[in-house]
């Protein structure tokens, strides 16, 4: 057991470091679930209204691919929480994996783990502590969520099953994080790898939910497994064994890799590089491109795939809802074309949210370059502050633009190919994707402003993004006043294809984004570096 010596000390250290972060996330998740359930209970007082709402939901391909199917239309619990089942599991999984990486690879990369390892610390202690802290967090989230749902008035068994949906997804991805942390030398890359696995899992689940013929695809996805527990609709708790088994396998693999590698090393040995810089590496922008291009390639590839998948699902909308009532509903909503467009415009909104995440993390690079003391030597050369800031801001703005174009192009090509009108679909979907850009830029610009005004609070950019996300996804359930709903830039984006295009919000969002960036520049030029 010597390999585990010091684990408890590291667990306490991690809990001390995350004493604000972890409770905050637990509270956010519990409130999100309980609040959403409470609001829905008030919204659907009797079974008839519930079945009607559930049927409508199940016949909307946009909702089903985004959130999943309602397995039992009469179930109050499922109707209340279907938006949070798979989607919530995705968020819990993201938190769980990032927690593991934060306490393993990130510590190793910074050199802090080396300092600790020179003391009495077993080889497996850090990984074990990371997994324990992450596991503890998701178990706590699951339990407290279940208790709060029971408190709101939902069935006991179903509520615990729902908690298990989240916890099991979290545990499986704690395992994924534990493994990716062994593969790469950098924490950033480990999180990136995990995000790819998570994204693929979610897309597989979406494909599985989108039609009966492809239902088996859900079973290829850990998120799909958690969803298939079917809380409030059978409570198949046994299914949770699948993500748990995955956890065991991944953790065993992580320990095996850990045993074989040196501290600080990844699976791939770093190769020597060029002894002199390419002639093009002579400006801050060229350096920024070097720093961002790897992640941009990854995201670009993911967006292309996502676009292709979304476009493909859209073309199946026709055969989506089999029942007569659903077909009637489709006619009411504007026929097959109308519902395909409704689906595509929802998915373009999702692309917009995802691209914003790229924009935020690219803009946050400014701060991490500054705190890692890598900005200082550059700013001590002939590079002005504005030029240095511009280099990363341009990467964020152009990067998101590239992602959106690639995603829209993918969706246009694949939906056009299936529907036989590529010439029409490609420009329509490129336009639909492009109208997302002003909101994306605005959210990115908020990070730039924070970087200038309050650099220590710059990660609040993620909280703002989360708030906009929640307003958009749950604002109507919570019956928020329109003035609050208007705070989210995403709410002002024209809904294309199919909807009416209005230039006013697009222009305004762009102008505000530009103003925020200018304010970020002005304040950054006046403040201390460091």
């Amino acid at each position, binding site marked *: 057991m010597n390999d585990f010596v010091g684990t408890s000390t590291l667990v306490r250290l991690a809990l001390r470091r995350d004493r604000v972060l972890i409770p905050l996330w637990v509270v956010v998740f519990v409130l999100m679930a309980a609040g959403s359930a409470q609001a829905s209970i008030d919204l659907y007082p009797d079974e008839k209204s519930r079945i009607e709402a559930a049927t409508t939901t199940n016949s909307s391909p946009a909702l089903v691919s985004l959130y999943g199917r309602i397995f039992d239309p009469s179930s109050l619990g499922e109707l209340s929480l279907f938006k949070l089942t798979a989607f919530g599991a995705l968020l819990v999984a993201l938190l769980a994996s990032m927690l593991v990486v934060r306490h393993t690879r990130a510590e190793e990369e910074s050199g802090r783990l080396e300092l600790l390892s020179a003391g009495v610390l077993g080889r497996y202690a850090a990984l074990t502590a990371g997994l324990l802290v992450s596991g503890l967090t998701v178990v706590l989230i699951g339990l407290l969520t279940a208790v709060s749902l029971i408190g709101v008035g939902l069935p006991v068994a179903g509520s615990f099953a729902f908690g298990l949906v989240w916890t099991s997804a979290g545990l499986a991805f704690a395992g994924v994080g534990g493994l990716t942390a062994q593969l790469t030398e950098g924490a950033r890359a480990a999180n990136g790898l995990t995000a790819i696995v998570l994204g693929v899992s979610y897309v597989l689940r979406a494909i599985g939910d989108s039609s009966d013929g492809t239902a088996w695809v859900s079973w290829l996805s850990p998120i799909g497994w958690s969803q298939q527990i079917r809380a409030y609709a059978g409570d198949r708790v046994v299914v949770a064994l699948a993500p748990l088994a995955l956890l065991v396998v991944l953790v065993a693999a992580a320990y095996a890799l850990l045993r074989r590698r040196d501290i600080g090393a990844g699976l791939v040995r770093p190769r020597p590089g060029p002894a002199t810089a390419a002639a093009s590496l002579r400006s801050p922008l060229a350096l920024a491109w070097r720093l961002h291009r790897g992640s941009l390639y990854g995201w670009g590839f993911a967006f292309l795939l996502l676009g292709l998948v979304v476009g493909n699902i859209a073309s199946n909308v026709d055969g989506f809802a089999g029942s007569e009532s659903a077909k009637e509903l489709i006619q009411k909503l504007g026929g097959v074309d109308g519902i395909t467009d409704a689906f595509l415009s929802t998915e373009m909104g999702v692309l917009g949210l995802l691209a914003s995440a790229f924009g935020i993390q690219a803009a946050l690079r400014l701060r991490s370059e500054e705190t890692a003391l890598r900005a*200082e030597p550059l700013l001590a050369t002939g590079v002005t502050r504005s030029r240095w800031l511009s280099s990363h801001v341009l990467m964020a703005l152009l990067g998101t633009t590239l992602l959106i174009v690639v995603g829209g192009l993918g969706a246009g090509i694949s939906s056009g190919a299936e529907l036989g009108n590529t010439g029409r679909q490609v420009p329509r979907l490129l336009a639909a994707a492009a109208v997302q850009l002003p909101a994306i830029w605005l959210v990115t610009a908020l990070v730039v402003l924070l970087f200038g005004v309050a650099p220590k609070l710059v990660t609040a950019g993620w909280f703002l993004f989360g708030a906009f996300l929640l307003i958009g996804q749950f604002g109507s359930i919570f019956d928020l006043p329109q003035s609050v709903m208007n705070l989210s830039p995403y709410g002002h984006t024209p809904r294309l294809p199919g909807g009416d295009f209005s230039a006013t919000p697009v222009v305004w969002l762009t102008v505000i984004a530009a103003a925020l960036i200018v304010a970020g520049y002005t304040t950054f030029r*006046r403040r201390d570096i460091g």
Partner: protein
Amino acid sequence: MTSAIVVSGLHKSYGVTHALDGLDLEVATGEVHGFLGPNGAGKSTTIRVLLGLLRGDSGDVSLLGGDPWHDAAQLHRRLAYVPGDVNLWPNLTGGEVIDLLGRLRGGLDPKKRDELLRRFDLDPTKKGRTYSKGNRQKVALVAALASDVELLILDEPTSGLDPLMEEVFRQCIEEERHRDRTVLLSSHILSEVEALCDRISIIRKGKVVETGTLADLRHLTRTSVQAELASSPNGLAKLPGVHGLEVEGHRVRCEVDTAQLDGLMKQLAASGIKNLVAQPPTLEELFLRHYEDDTAEPALVDAR
């Protein structure tokens, strides 16, 4: 003689901590100036103000005839900076970083670059994250020394270097002196400063407490004297400037203010000197004298 750096009455505080408390500093063009002080005395803060990375709260700062806050980028083309903590981009090689920094300063001499790489025994093909602290520092040093600039600002440049490399560094600075480049060398390694610097400023709690050539500073301090005399000495205790006098039979041990050395010698000679050892003050003693009272006050100003 013109001055490359003139700082007067510079104040800088972070919240409640006063990192710089009315600092004055003058570095003449063409000299190697030692900037001496322990950790947290305000050396790095001063340098960051000189580079326009921080803005002083009050006081005047002039660098190469310009204002480092307003004309930062133009001035930076004429200087090279080696930070105390060198962090490199994990996926760029050392060679790429050297070239990049050199180009952003306005060019570097490829011959000099190769020569320095050889002298510092640095492999430029390794990725940033695989370098040790010392090697990261060498990357920054090579980039700075190979640049064609008037002023070198070096913040504890040898803190990660081994003794062999420290020697190479000293040779390089000697060569820079002969090229009439101005060097501001911040350090807490006294022997390095003693060996390299024309003039020295000692900083303490955000203020420069002593400045001048090593000879000037020595003049202000005490020489330690040990003597064996022919007969018992007398009258030593009454002499001005004599401290810590110990008399043991015919042996005498004391410290004397260097300005009063002559008086002591005359008095000793009167008793007949059989053996005499006089040690000039080392920089270490000089330094300790300024910091003596700090040992009782453990909390130095935390100047980041």
